[in-house]
């Protein structure tokens, strides 16, 4: 069975640009969550979507937005990129309580 997939794997952007990251959940999983992990820290919760509705939002500015599609895949969008947005962005999907993570997208903002 395929796990959670994310694209792209790596991305380099400049300050002020916007970025779209994509995630495909494990087949049958309807919940998708996004996390940001900066170097030396644990992942931080950004969003959770279930059945295309936002069910939770972490302490991130409005520059961060997301959506979930009818096939349960999801996109994370970040506008007006800052240097501090450089991080590993992780997507996780779940059927019940346990969340399963994808490999992440490493974003570098110059």
């Amino acid at each position, binding site marked *: 069975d395929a796990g*959670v997939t*994310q694209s792209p794997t790596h991305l380099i952007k400049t300050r002020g640009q916007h970025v779209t990251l994509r995630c495909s959940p494990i087949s049958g999983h309807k*919940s998708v*969550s996004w*996390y940001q992990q900066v170097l*030396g*820290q*644990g*992942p*931080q*919760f950004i969003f*959770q979507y*279930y059945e295309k509705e936002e*069910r*939770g939002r*972490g302490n991130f500015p409005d520059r961060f937005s997301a959506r979930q599609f009818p096939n349960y895949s999801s996109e994370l969008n970040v506008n007006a990129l800052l240097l501090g947005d450089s991080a590993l962005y*992780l997507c*996780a999907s*779940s059927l019940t*309580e*346990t*969340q*399963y*993570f*994808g*490999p*992440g997208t490493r974003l570098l903002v110059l």
Partner: protein
Amino acid sequence: DQQVKQNSPSLSVQEGRISILNCDYTNSMFDYFLWYKKYPAEGPTFLISISSIKDKNEDGRFTVFLNKSAKHLSLHIVPSQPGDSAVYFCAAEVQGAQKLVFGQGTRLTINP
């Protein structure tokens, strides 16, 4: 406000011995706890979980212990193997919220 803490940034254990990783939490609303293992350039891999209605859960070489009164959980790996070398994250949530709160991680190194 660090609600989940892993106070040991690193741990070194000899192959074949027991590895014990510790985690403390402050939010008494947390009722579901998980451990993840992370290799460089990969996403976290789920290892084992425990609900607050239990105080122990085992899966092969991995055992998680939960002490609710102390707000403390630990992961025991026995016997430790070289492939266990990775960063281990403790995570907690209010069941159903689907919002994991992670600790800072502990880098475990298994020496031959």
